Each structure stands twice: as C-alpha cells, then as structure tokens.
C-alpha cells in the first residue's frame, strides 16, 4: 500500500492570489470560484490535474475555505469526472497572508511526500503534469540541488498576455536549462538595458536569454522546497524564492531550472482583469483543448455551437432580431431581447438583456438585469446587478447586488454594493487615476479589438494608488508603507542611540533586524539610514544645524562606514542627502556643507561626488543650483587641480 501511494503524483494548489488585482469581485468570494467563461477556476484546475495524471491534490485555501469545501462537496455529489480519480484534501488557514506562509504551513503539516507540482488556482492549462514532473526528476538525478523547475509557455513578445502581465527576463544555461538570472518587469516597462554578470557568460558554454516567456504559475518542486521556505522566513512569494535561491545559490545548495511547453500545450494564468478577458476568449477559441466550456462544469455537452465561436445553452432565449457577432457565450435561461448586439461577451445564467442593448468585451454573471438601450463596453458585472435604462458603462467593475440608475454614464469606476446609487462619487474620480481607466487598444480599424480590462483597480483611499498603478501585485514589491515604518524605526533607534550614547554596533544590529522585519532591499537600507541620520529630532531643534550635523556624523561614523562601502552605496547616500535637503526644511540651503562634512569624514569619495553632481545637473534637480553646493564643487575642483599640480 505504501509503495502504491508513493507513485501517486501530488499537486499543491494555492487557492489565493494574495493580491487585490481581482477586487472587488474576489474580496468576499474565493478566487477559485470566479467563473471564467462560465466555469469556476477551480474546476478547470482540478480537471486539468486529472487529465495530466495527478492523483492527489492538496488545496490550500486562506480565504473563505468553507465556500471551497462546499463547492468540492457539491462536485462529488454531481459526480463530476475528476472526483473518481482524484484524492482532494482541503487545508485552510486564515492566518496565512503570503504564499510563503502557505508553504511553511505545508511543510509543518508534512503532507508532501516527495516531488510535487505547485500551482496557483488561477492557472488554466492542458499540460501533462506527470510527464513534466518526470522531466524534473531527471534533472534532479543530474543535479542533486535542483529545487524547482519553472514552467513557461513561449509566445511572441507582443502577445497580449505578456504585455499585460509582469514580463519575465530570464537567462539560463543553454544546455542544462539552469536559470542564471531572473528579472521581472512591470507591464509596459520602458527599461531597455539588461545587465548580465560576466561570470554567468564565462562559466557556461552557451547562455540563452528569454524575454518572451509567459509565466504559467506552475512549478515542479523537489521535496526540498517546503523546508527552504521554512528556513528562509523572508521568502514571501515565488519571486522571493527565485531571487533568494539565485543570490544564495552556494549557501542554500539549491538551483533552479526552467522548461518551455511544446507545441500544442497551452498554459496561462489569470492575474488581472485583462488577462482574465484574454484567457476567457482563448477558452472559447478552444486553445485549451481538451479543456473547454463543455467539459468544465459537467461532462455532458449542453452548449450549442452557433458558428463564429458563439456558444449558447439550449435553454436560453434569443430574440430573432438580436445579433451575436463573435465570441459570445450565453448561459441557461438567459433572455436576449430585440435588436441587442453582443460581441466578445460572456453572459451567465438567468440574466435578462433588454432591447437595443450593445455589449462589447464584457463579462456578465448570473441574474443580472440590463434594461433597454444600455451600452456596456469592457466591463465586469457580478451577480444580481440591475442596470437601468440608457446607462453607458465603459470599463466598469460592478460588485454583486449593485444597482445603476438610469441615464448614468460611467467610465473606469468600481462600484460595490455599499455604494449603491453613488454614481456621483464614481464620476468625480473617473479620469483622475490612470489605474482605473479602461484601456481601449482599438487600433483604428473599428471595434474589433476590445481587449478589455486594465491592469489594476486602485482605490482612491489607498495610499499607494498614485505610484503603483502599474504594479500588478502587492506582495511582490514592498509597499511604501513598510518603508515608511522602517524609516521611522531607524530614526527612533538612532535618536535613542545618540541620546544614550549607545555603541554603534548595537545600532547596526537594530537597523538590520528592522530591515528583515520589513523586507527592505540593501540599497534602500543605505538610502534610509542616511536619510534617518539627517532627520534626527536633535537636528530639528538645534540652533546651529551644521555643528549638530558634524557631531552627529562624528558619532555615527561607524554606522555610516558599515553601510556606505561601495560605489553604488555612496550614490545611495548622496541621493539620500539630496532627498533630505529637499524635504527637510531645517537643512534648506545647506547641501554643500553637509556634503563637505561627509567628504571630510571620508564617507564619500571624489569620483562619486562628481558623478552625482553631473547627474543632478542633467536631472535639473532643484539643489543643483544651490549656492552652497556650487561653492563646494568649485572648491573640490580647485582642490583636485592643486593636488594634481603638486604631484
């Protein structure tokens, strides 16, 4: 019996995305139950796992685990095909807030017996998991330290699934497919350079660079992966893991590999509303064969194919004069009235579409009533909504149970049930934020290309909305909040240290521990330490700022030397000075003197100073014109010339 069990392929499905890209629809409901083309995501995942030869699945659910449990129970009652050959275990923990926490829980529970497949609930695929896992085992035979093989789908770089996602740049050994470098970029990033360490080119006979890989959110893992997460408590998500392993390859004795899916194997992950729309259409276009809308909910085929990739349930009622242009899916008992026109749209069950309604590129869930003469473009309307007459919605996300009054015009809003009838609020914030606007990629030739959903739906209340409109996931990069807290903590500990004349070694320890607590990158630490020193409360109150600054620098010299060692850290330091001089009014006009003090203390060197000054000039920074700074650099130039002459 034991032997049999060991041969069963195990998969771990993480039921949450740990970000708010799909809000507000997925705030109350688990992501797994979000329907894509009429079928919940979890059904696709389980079905693809069965088809891919997986025998045992661990579902790890952090959000509303009871709803997931109910869904699985109902599937078993309905005798959905996967229930016969799949052993499903549901774990839940409400305290987990990142993927790292989930992996640590799984490690603690000891449920994973050996090699396993790790995937998110947002993956839609038709790959053969068992074959991929065997491939990973082969790699492990050659390299004992192989921890994870990442699965990618190769597509063209201009594919919408790449341009609307965080794109991946990957450098790998051409022969062994071992990953050497891994970078992720924000969508529509204008970064044009790539830096590749020389060793990685010198030590490998062939290096492959990929920029056209689509992350499928599937990873083939060795038994060592959960313990690695437990050992490194700062790994929060898969990217942290990848970066951590690549940086500390020797220490952790682990390495990463990648594999590309071949030919007709399809895999993609729903990460935001835009990819949601693209993947829905891919499913209608049968790219995910044998997974399709017919197989998802039940094995019996109850859709009728109408040509032009239109599918309707036989129990839906269509008016004779309505037009389904292309890529339309209509659920059961839905009624479409006269002269309605639908394009690239998915409509759930029991909905009612009124006369002369035009719907393009939208997703409409169950029990929605859309009254006459509405025009809906690129929107998502959740269950039980009512849209009154003559409304024009463009790029709107409407939470369940909401009502939109007649003659409303909305563009790029999020409407939730609490905000019923709050159309004014919606209008006022409509165009101010780039994050909430629907992007219409129509390229001039008519209304063919309604791609749909914009990246992220930011809240006007949230503090990071202004600068993070392009961030696709919060967990991936430190939220500015965290860095602010970090800065405050560093200031506090330095102030205390200065007052009580503590040893600088202790202060360095304290700063380092805060750094790990808030997951701050090294270069940010350099920046914030200098920033903190220049923001000490003693400076604010002091009458002669420069004298105090000199004392402070003298006292904290060991701290500065500890952090400011390399060229890049010096630049961080100078940038911090620039930032402080701009933001702290007690340092106003004293940039030159402060730099001079740092120069005297041997914290910064001449070359970096000159490079920084050039940067300032080209950036036309305010402080470049400051008298003190100009004087300082004049002095510096003179001093250097003198020294040259004397030699």
């Amino acid at each position, binding site marked *: 019996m034991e032997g049999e069990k060991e041969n069963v392929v195990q998969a771990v499905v993480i039921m949450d995305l740990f970000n708010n890209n799909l809000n507000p629809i997925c705030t109350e409901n688990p992501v797994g139950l979000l329907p894509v083309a009429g079928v919940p995501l979890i059904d696709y995942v389980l079905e693809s796992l*069965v*088809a891919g030869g997986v025998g045992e699945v661990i579902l790890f659910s952090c959000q509303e685990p009871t709803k997931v449990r109910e869904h699985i129970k109902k599937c078993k009652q309905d*005798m959905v*095909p996967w229930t*016969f*050959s799949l052993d499903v275990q549901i774990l839940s923990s409400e305290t987990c807030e990142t993927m790292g926490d989930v992996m640590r829980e799984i490690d603690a529970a000891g449920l994973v017996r050996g090699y396993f497949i790790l995937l998110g609930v947002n993956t839609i695929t038709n790959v053969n998991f068992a074959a991929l896992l065997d491939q990973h085992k082969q790699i492990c035979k050659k390299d004992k330290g192989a921890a994870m093989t990442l699965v990618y*789908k*190769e*597509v*063209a770089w*201009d*594919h*919408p*699934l790449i*341009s609307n996602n965080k794109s991946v740049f990957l450098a790998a050994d051409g022969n062994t497919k071992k990953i050497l470098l891994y970078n992720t970029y924000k969508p529509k990033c204008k970064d044009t350079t790539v830096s590749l360490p020389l060793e990685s080119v010198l030590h490998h006979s062939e290096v492959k660079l990929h920029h056209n890989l689509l992350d499928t959110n599937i990873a083939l893992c060795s038994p060592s992966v959960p313990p690695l997460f437990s050992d490194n408590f700062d790994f929060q998500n898969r990217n942290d893991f990848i970066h951590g392993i690549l940086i500390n390859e020797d220490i952790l004795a682990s390495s990463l590999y990648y594999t590309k899916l071949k*030919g*007709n194997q*399809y895999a993609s992950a729903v990460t935001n509303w835009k990819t949601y729309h*693209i993947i829905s*259409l*891919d499913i209608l*276009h*049968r*790219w995910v*064969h*044998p997974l399709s809308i017919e*197989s998802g909910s039940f*094995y*019996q*085929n*109850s859709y*009728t*194919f109408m*040509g*032009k*990739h239109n599918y309707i349930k036989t129990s839906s009622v269509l008016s004779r004069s309505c037009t389904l242009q*292309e*890529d339309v899916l209509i659920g059961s008992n839905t009624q479409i009235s006269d002269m309605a026109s639908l394009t690239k749209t998915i409509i759930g069950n029991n909905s009612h579409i009124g006369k002369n309604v035009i719907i393009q590129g939208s997703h409409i869930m169950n029990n929605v009533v859309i009254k006459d003469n509405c025009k809906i473009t690129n929107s998502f309307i959740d269950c039980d909504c009512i849209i009154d007459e003559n409304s024009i919605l463009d790029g709107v996300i409407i939470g369940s149970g909401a009502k939109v009054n007649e003659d409303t015009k909305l563009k790029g809003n999020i409407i939730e049930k609490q905000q019923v009838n709050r159309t004014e609020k919606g209008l006022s914030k409509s165009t101010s934020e780039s994050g909430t606007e629907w992007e219409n990629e129509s390229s001039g030739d008519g209304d*063919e*290309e309604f791609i749909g959903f914009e990246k992220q739906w930011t809240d006007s209340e949230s503090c990071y909305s202004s600068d993070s409109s392009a961030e696709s996931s919060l967990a991936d990069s430190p939220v500015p909040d965290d860095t602010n807290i970090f800065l405050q903590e560093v200031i506090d500990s330095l102030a205390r240290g200065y007052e009580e004349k503590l040893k600088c070694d202790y202060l360095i320890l304290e700063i380092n521990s805060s750094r790990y607590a808030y997951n701050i990158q090294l270069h940010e630490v350099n920046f914030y330490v200098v920033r903190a020193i220049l923001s000490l409360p003693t400076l604010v109150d002091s009458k002669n700022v420069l004298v105090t600054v000199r004392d402070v620098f003298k006292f904290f010299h060991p701290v500065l030397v500890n952090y400011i060692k390399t060229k890049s850290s010096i630049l961080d330091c100078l940038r911090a000075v620039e930032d402080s001089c701009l933001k702290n009014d007690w340092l106003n006009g004293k940039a030159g003197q402060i730099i001079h003090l740092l120069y005297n203390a041997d914290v910064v060197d001449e070359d970096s100073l000159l490079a920084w000054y050039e940067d300032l000039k080209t950036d036309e920074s305010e402080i470049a014109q400051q008298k003190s700074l100009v004087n300082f650099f004049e002095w510096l130039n003179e001093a250097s010339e003198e020294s040259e002459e004397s030699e």
Partner: protein
Amino acid sequence: MSPLEGNLQDLDEKSIENIVKFVSDIRTGKLQGSNKIAVATVTLLEQIITDASNTSALFLVNAVRATGRRITKALPHELIAANMVRRVLRAIRDEQRALANQSSEYSGDSLQRLVLAAPSRRATLPSHHDLREPIRDHIAELLGELEASTSAICGQAKEHIHTDELILTYGSSNLVEKFLKASGTNKPKLLLVEGPQHSESAAMATRLSSQGVSVTLVNGAAVGALMPRVNKVVIGVRSTLAGGAVLGEAGLLAVTTAARHYSVPVVVLSPLYKLSPLHSCDHTHFNALAPPYTAMPYMSGESALTQVYAPMCDFVPPDHVTLFITNLGGSSPSYIYRLLSELYDPNDYQI
C-alpha cells in the same frame, strides 16, 4: 425534440461512474483509435448489462439506451460509440424476439403467426427469462467481429491494389497503412498527401517505406496537379453516413473533388462499426471545430485576437465515392442502406 426522446429510467451510480470514466478517457485522449473506442464501448455496455438488477428485455434496452444517450450527449462527435450502442440494442431485441417466438406454443407452425411475429420489434413483451446469457454470446460475437474487421478488410487488398499502380491516400490512417502492407507482392507506388497532422503523415510514410512500399509525401496543394496520374485513391474515414456519404479528416473533400474531376476511382475503407445510420442533415457533426493549434501555433500576438477555424472533419458527398470496402466485401454507396438495415434496428436509429 423527437417523440422517441422520452424519459428513461436513471442508471445506478456504478454505471454512471463507468460511463464518466469512459467519456473522460476518450476526452483526454487516453483512449484513441476507432477500433479501440468501439471495443471499449462494447465492454462498457457488457458491464452494464451484467450489472443490471432486472433482466427483462425492456429493462436492458432502457439501460443500454440511457447509456447511449449519455455518451452521445457528452461526445456528440464519436459516432462509433453510438453505433456500438445500436448494435448491442439490436442484439437484445433479436434475443427477445427469438424468445417470444420460442415461447409461443406453435412457433413457426402457422404462416399467420410468422407474419404477425415479425413486425413485433418493440421489445416490450414481459419476460421472466434471463436474457443475459444469450446477449453475452451476441456481444462476444460482436467483439470478435471488431477484432477481425481490420484483417477482413486487409484480406481484400490484393483485389484492389495491383503492381505498379499509383495509389493516392490522404493523411495518416492505421487501416490504410495495413491495407497497403497487405497488398503483399503487388507493390504499389504511393502518394501520401499530408493531412492536418503533418508529423503523423510523415511517420506513416517512414513506416511504409521501411516495408518496401515506395512512398512520396506530397503537400495538399499538389493534389490537383498529381491527380491525373493517379490510378486509385484509397482513404480511411471517420464515419460512413446513411446515404453513402463520408465524414473524413479535414481537407479530404479537396482530394475527392479532384479525384471526381479526373474520374479517378475513390475507394473508402470502412469497417462495419463505422457505419452510422445518421443522415447528413444533422449539422452538429459537421460544424465541430478542432483545437486551433492544428492550424497555427499559439505564438504570435495575433493568435489571441484572431478567430481560427480548424474544422474537425470534412463531409464528402456520396457521389465522390466509388466503392466502400467493408468487412463483408465491396459495396457501392447506394447499397449502404441495406447494410444499415442488417446491422441496426430502425427503432434505434435515434438513441
């Protein structure tokens, strides 16, 4: 909805489980090849008949029909599975009829009784006999036929393929491959036209040429130019329809149209289990789309926006076919209806 589609009794859980497994095996591609699907269907039906709680003919017919309905609903394009359901139904009905005739005292005595007994096709007579044993014999016979069908067809190869003839075939087909190999010393020259799965066509060409058949692999576009030189077109099909029409791999129609234009005989290899009593008016089978990666890869940015139509099969009208070769020998398209009435009971045309 036709009047024949009344409600049937529900199957028990174990049977449903078996059906679901069968369907998902076919869907996921674990079960491939028409012959294997046919055998698996018959085995599934045999299992359901064996497990049946009630052994009356009515009950068995209903159980088999319910199974057939579930299968056809889940797999509307697998006509072969439906054909096998019809064959088994026919077996039950035959058995019931024989039993009815036997049980009546003067069976076979009076002409009147014979006349009256013959049309009593509906298996509605109540019976207390266990029909399962004789039905199992029928099924064993059917399985034997399925097993022997390939060799029966290949046995006729020498009659149709002669030395130095130029034969053209389309796409890869196990049956055509075996048929050509079976031609033995009459080594033909073969033109193999690439079907939608290029790699499979190439693999078939390699296998044949290693057997000593001279094979030329040509592109579909070259068919028109090559057709005048061809002596015979030999093709395998997905299914043969009631009127003598044929459902074949996508692209087949272009080949047969060219053949008809140049009056080249088209020989269709169709084992009996591929004979379907459906007519071509049922459009769900022709509009079905294959996954689009058979036509283009999911690579370019356009592939997410374009609509790719890759039809699953082509419909070839009966006048394009010269001869069908079945297990029983050659027959013309106009004779298909006779074969159908021998194989199936007219009540079961619609499951």
